[in-house]
């Protein structure tokens, strides 16, 4: 029993979870509306897109890499889905298109990082620009309107399952699946090894290049498919959709304990981190902090969250899957 309790307190995600509870409590006290079902739905709906992307980004960050192209990819994908649908194509065709885009970007990133061994920051920054440029050219001044959104996507965006918005369920289920895979399936656990100590991983026989490539491919695929989530959430898409999302996603991961230094952190933490950041933004409003100060306070809290996580990580046993004692 004692060891269970001790293990609980050493869980890496605990600090960020506690922070979330505190923020929720503060927001709720300032605005009781927050504790109602609609308040819950506000938060979960608002966080869905970032949460999905954060789950994917975790795969990449634990390997000590980063993928900055996700914002451009998800935006372009959302636009393509709406555009194809408006030209009469069916739901599966549109989703196939979105997946194809995601896979293409992921494969390009993966090839350059895994096989050419190029730094992921540079590569994904380059693909960010290229995808955005192509996207802008294709989209021009057009806007996807609600009638162009495929039926199933529209349904998902507007409805709830026993009170929980479908979009959040998508993120939640994705988190459970990927979380399970990363803990139990050998080839996924290798990602942590690659991030902790690349040389040891190579010497230990892990096919590093293949793992890295597949991880970027997966991230790209998720970003592509997540275009449906973006479209469902906002019922619109245009040339500037998705701009800047990458920073929010990275912030969510870092706050949730997925260290930039690699080798540590889980998708559960990433999602909690995303929810925490969303809750903070809502808290600022609820507490009546003047509009012009909100961004500054947001930035300060982000720094505080990262600092806190760093401080506690030196005191907490890391959930590195390599079984650190």
């Amino acid at each position: 029993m004692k060891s269970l309790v001790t293990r609980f307190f050493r869980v890496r995600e605990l600090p960020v979870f506690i922070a979330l509870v505190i923020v929720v409590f503060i927001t709720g006290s300032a605005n009781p509306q927050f504790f109602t079902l609609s308040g819950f739905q506000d938060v979960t709906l608002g966080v869905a897109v970032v949460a999905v992307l954060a789950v994917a980004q975790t795969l990449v960050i634990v390997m000590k890499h980063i993928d900055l192209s996700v914002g451009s990819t998800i935006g372009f994908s959302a636009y393509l889905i709406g555009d194809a649908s408006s030209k009469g194509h069916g739901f599966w065709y549109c989703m196939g298109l979105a997946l194809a885009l995601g896979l293409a970007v992921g494969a390009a990133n993966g090839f350059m990082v895994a096989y050419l061994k190029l730094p992921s920051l540079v590569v994904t920054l380059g693909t960010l620009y290229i995808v955005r440029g192509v996207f802008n050219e294709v989209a021009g001044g057009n806007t996807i309107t609600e009638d162009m959104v495929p039926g199933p996507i529209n349904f998902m965006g507007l409805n709830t399952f026993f009170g929980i918005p479908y979009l959040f369920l998508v993120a939640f289920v994705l988190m459970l699946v990927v979380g399970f895979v990363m803990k139990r399936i050998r080839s996924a656990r290798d990602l942590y090894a690659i991030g902790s100590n690349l040389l040891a991983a190579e010497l230990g026989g892990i096919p590093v290049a293949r793992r890295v490539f597949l991880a970027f491919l997966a991230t790209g695929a998720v970003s592509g498919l997540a275009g449906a989530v973006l479209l469902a959430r906002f019922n619109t898409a245009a040339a500037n959709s998705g701009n800047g999302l990458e920073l929010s996603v990275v912030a969510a991961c870092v706050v949730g304990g997925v260290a930039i230094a690699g080798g540590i952190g889980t998708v559960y933490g990433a999602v909690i981190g995303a929810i925490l950041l969303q809750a903070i933004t809502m808290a600022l409003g609820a507490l009546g902090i003047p509009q012009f100060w909100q961004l500054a306070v947001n930035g300060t809290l982000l720094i505080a969250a990262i600092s806190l996580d760093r401080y506690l990580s030196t005191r907490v046993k890391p959930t590195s899957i390599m079984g650190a004692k």
Partner: protein
Amino acid sequence: MKKKYTFGWDQGVTAFLAITVVVGSFVSEYFANFDNLSFVIQDIAEIAIIALAMTYLIIAGEIDLSVASILSLTSATIGFLFRNGTSFEMAIVGGLLVGLLCGLLNGYLVTVVGLPSLAVTIGTLALFRGLCYALLGNEPVNELPENWIVLGYENIPGTFLPWSTIPLAILAAIAWIVLHYTRIGRWTFAIGINPEAAKFSGIPVARMKLGLFAMTGLMSGVAGVVYTLRFASASPDGAVGFELSVIAAVLFGGVAIAGGIGTLWGVLAAVLSLGAIRSVLQLIDFSANALLVVSGALLLISVVVPRAIEIYQSRRKSAFVTKI
């Protein structure tokens, strides 16, 4: 082996710059005149100034994503102080001081608190930008003294060079000499190549890094002054996204993101090249969207080409070896 191709990349960027200018003059009649060149220099002045400091930082193995926000905060501070009665000269000093303080904050969070610079500067990016809004609200300051504004967009009398060339040239010269010919420069490389070894050989790593961040903040501040004068106004939403341009220029200039490699001339040539090519493409009517794609492509080329050369060279070398 690596040192060899760094010089190669240097020459490569210089060649690229030369080719761009020459080709540019042929494909567009509007490119190679003094007016346009003056504009290109003005266009890249702020990015170049910040890139000088960012070069050191990346060579030392760190990064700073908040530079654009520091630039804007400096500008906002100048506007705020001036609007509230301070003399413009004092406002500039105040702005530079703010830039320095921002850099020190970044440095403190990285060296003392021990946070990864990529993550922490995402936070300070938001914080500093937020402070711009806190200072100016939704009212940009636009009545700045005429004699200062003139420096923003006029040329040095008798030449085609804009006034901003002066701070740029002086700072570039200093940065170049320090990086390649002084102890501080050598230390910067050492820290980037192997921080542990650097520490053990007596280099004050933490203090150096703190200093580098502070310098980056100060340079962003200088860029903020130039920016304010060029646009004759101080606004809270200035320079959004600049940090990516600075980093792209530094990387295109041959500085390795992993640290330990790079030259200052490479970065300067890269900044000038990017400005020149942007100008050429615009003048031959490339759309703004196409420019985005080109920027991304250049960035990728800047890392793919050296790697391709490396692979080719190592293949040749191993072929050589097996012959023996």
